[in-house]
């Protein structure tokens, strides 16, 4: 029975709406998953080397032991962010002829298939084979392996238990967060060093392998505790995710702009209240840190325009590229209503245009701080900003009018490739690389700054002509309106 349920889960992953039906995308998805796993494996195998280089002179095994508790504390935090309750999948089974204990066993087994459970295996276990076994013998190696596994299992079920409890009573969550914060503070102020505690424990285990049994008991108790709780509380409403009371929000500062303000408020709420757009928006903010990778001395000193322009465009335009391609698709579930209502399409498009402009400007303000690294970055960033403001916004909106694939907002964001096909990737590439068509000739002719200025001016002119763009885009939208509606209805 449990195997049947697991096979259902496997099917639901590959057949889900977030997964493209094309073989190419499935291969791509598998490739990404395998690549991530392989990277972790490589990291695990190279751990001995890495530790030797990072902490020269110290016994790598000792350092390894010190890291373990740190990792698992971090692991708890990551679980808090990423761990999902595998609940929705049980609803169809609750009324079938399946015993509760079987469902609970399935839930527990299913929940273990999470990348956070596989990650420590790949990172920590190889080291055991490469460094610990030869030095301390098979028993110690087995003990450490068992400990790592037990801690993973323990963390996993502990977190599930806390999340499930906090659905009913948020004090659990508060308590958990407080404990983590306290531990972090204690460690930061060197009152209680996690690494020394960790080293102490695990070195002890190395010499007394039987101590590992204690941790296995701990893991087992966490598992049993979770199981007991589930058996008693297998009711749909009690198991589903925390959903607090929602309040209506009004953005009064937007009121002054009438319909456009209303539309922007709608977009803001869309981003704030739905997982995938929120994910896109947060990524766009996080990627403003991308500059640190590119704006380094070896690129800044000779001021290599090719390498420096890309991050500028990327950072100021990422939101437009990621969000803008689906500008209409995000609202695909309510699109019929929007088009039937008293909303002129030109206003709707103008609202989107404004949204892109605002995001690009915000990104520019954030990234302008890179100017402190090298003031010459500012004009480059400004040119990229103007390009995104005028040209990229318009082009991407045009591309959105040929996008007939709707997006289901209720699905989560991780591994959700719904609506993303080859054309989306190609377009992103075009938007990012397009400016180079302007820059390259100028650089080759030895007047790169003129090229930068040209890019900025072109963007500015395009921005000043945005009314023309909006009329053009409205016409394009009308040409394909019924196709878009049809595509969105299919979902």
């Amino acid at each position, binding site marked *: 029975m449990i195997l049947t349920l697991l096979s259902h889960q496997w099917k639901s992953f590959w057949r889900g709406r977030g997964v493209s039906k094309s073989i190419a995308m499935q291969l791509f998805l598998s490739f990404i998953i395998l690549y991530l796993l392989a990277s972790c494996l490589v990291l695990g195998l190279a751990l001995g080397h890495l530790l030797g280089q990072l902490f020269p002179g110290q016994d790598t095994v000792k350092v390894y032991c010190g890291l373990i508790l740190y990792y698992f504390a971090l692991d708890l935090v990551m679980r808090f962010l990423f761990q999902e309750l595998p609940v929705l999948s049980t609803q169809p089974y609750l009324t079938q002829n399946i015993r509760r204990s079987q469902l609970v066993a399935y839930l527990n087994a299913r929940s273990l298939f999470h990348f956070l459970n596989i990650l420590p295996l790949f990172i920590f276990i190889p080291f055991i084979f490469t460094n610990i076994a030869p030095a301390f013998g098979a028993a110690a190696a087995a003990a450490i392996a068992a400990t790592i596994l037990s801690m993973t299992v323990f963390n996993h079920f502990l977190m599930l238990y806390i999340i499930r409890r906090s659905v009913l009573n948020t004090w659990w969550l508060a308590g958990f967060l407080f404990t983590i914060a306290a531990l972090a503070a204690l460690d930061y102020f060197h009152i209680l060093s996690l690494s020394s505690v960790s080293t102490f424990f695990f070195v002890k285990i190395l010499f007394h392998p039987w101590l590992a049994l204690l941790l296995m008991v701990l893991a087992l108790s966490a598992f049993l505790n979770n199981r007991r709780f589930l058996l008693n509380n297998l009711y749909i409403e009690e198991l589903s995710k925390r959903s607090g009371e929602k309040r209506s929000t009004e953005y009064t500062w937007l009121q002054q702009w009438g319909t456009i303000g209303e539309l922007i408020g709608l977009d803001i709420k869309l981003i704030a209240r739905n997982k995938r757009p929120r994910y896109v928006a947060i990524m766009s903010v996080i990627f403003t840190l991308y500059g640190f990778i590119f704006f380094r001395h070896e690129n800044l000193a000779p001021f290599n325009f090719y390498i420096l322009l890309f991050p500028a465009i990327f950072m100021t335009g990422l939101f437009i590229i990621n969000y803008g391609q689906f500008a209409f698709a995000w609202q695909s579930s309510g*699109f019929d209503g929007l088009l039937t*209502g008293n909303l002129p399409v030109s206003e709707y498009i103008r609202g989107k245009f404004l949204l892109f402009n605002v995001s690009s400007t915000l990104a520019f303000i954030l990234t302008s701080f890179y100017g402190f690294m090298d003031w010459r970055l500012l004009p480059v960033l400004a040119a990229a900003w103007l390009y995104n403001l005028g040209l990229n916004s318009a082009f991407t909106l045009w591309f959105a009018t040929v996008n007939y694939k709707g997006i289901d907002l209720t699905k989560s964001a991780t591994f959700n490739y719904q609506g993303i096909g080859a054309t989306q990737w190609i377009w992103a590439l075009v938007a990012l690389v397009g400016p180079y068509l302007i820059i390259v000739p100028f650089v080759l002719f030895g007047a790169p700054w003129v090229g930068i200025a040209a890019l900025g001016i072109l963007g500015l002119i395009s921005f000043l002509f945005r009314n023309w763009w909006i009329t053009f885009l409205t016409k394009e939208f009308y040409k394909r309106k019924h196709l878009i509606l049809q595509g969105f209805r299919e979902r």
Partner: protein
Amino acid sequence: MITINNLVKAYNGNIVVNIPSLAFEAGELVGVVGNNGAGKTTLFRLLLDLVRVDKGQIFSNQMDVAATEKWKTYTAAYLDEGFLIQYLTPEEYFYFVGKLNGISKVDVDEFLIGFGAFFDGSVLKSGKFIRDLSKGNQFKVGIAACLLQKPEVLILDEPFANLDPSSQMRLVKMLKDLAVQKKVTVLVSSHDLNHVTDVCHRILLMERGRIIKDIDTTADTLQELEEYFQV
């Protein structure tokens, strides 16, 4: 008010709507009945320019609905959940619709007070987004949003289907009031023959895309319809 000329719509070679000529006057309350797949919802979508016509034209107040957007200012419709914005609370949605139609928040609030009985306490101040409301409550939000706009043309697809009996009665009363007082053209489709014959002055019976009966409601209409649908 609304005129249909030689309307044809086909999907994959199957004709789903085929209406040579049809007209609705202002203030008519029209019911559309037919079995599943008769083409009722497609007809409504065509009227709202949500689906492209293959042949023919639809005129609202002498304007081709496919050629201009002006008819949207006096038309309101609710066909399914795709007409709502799922991630807003009901209040936010009402204010949004109000804003688009130049109705101030105060006026929206006043309007909603009149709907207190219809909502029965589970729509307003519910602390939920529209996507978390039950189907019936979502329908209530949709219908209320339509009526908020004080339209001249109102199109509802199977409004009685998801409502509880008291709400159905209230809706019947609201629709009757509309047609009498405000000269609103109302198009309603339904599987509920009782309500349709009770509410509507005129009933269209569709079968496989064609209108096979166009009758003014009398006392015998219910029986006539039941005979048609009898198995």
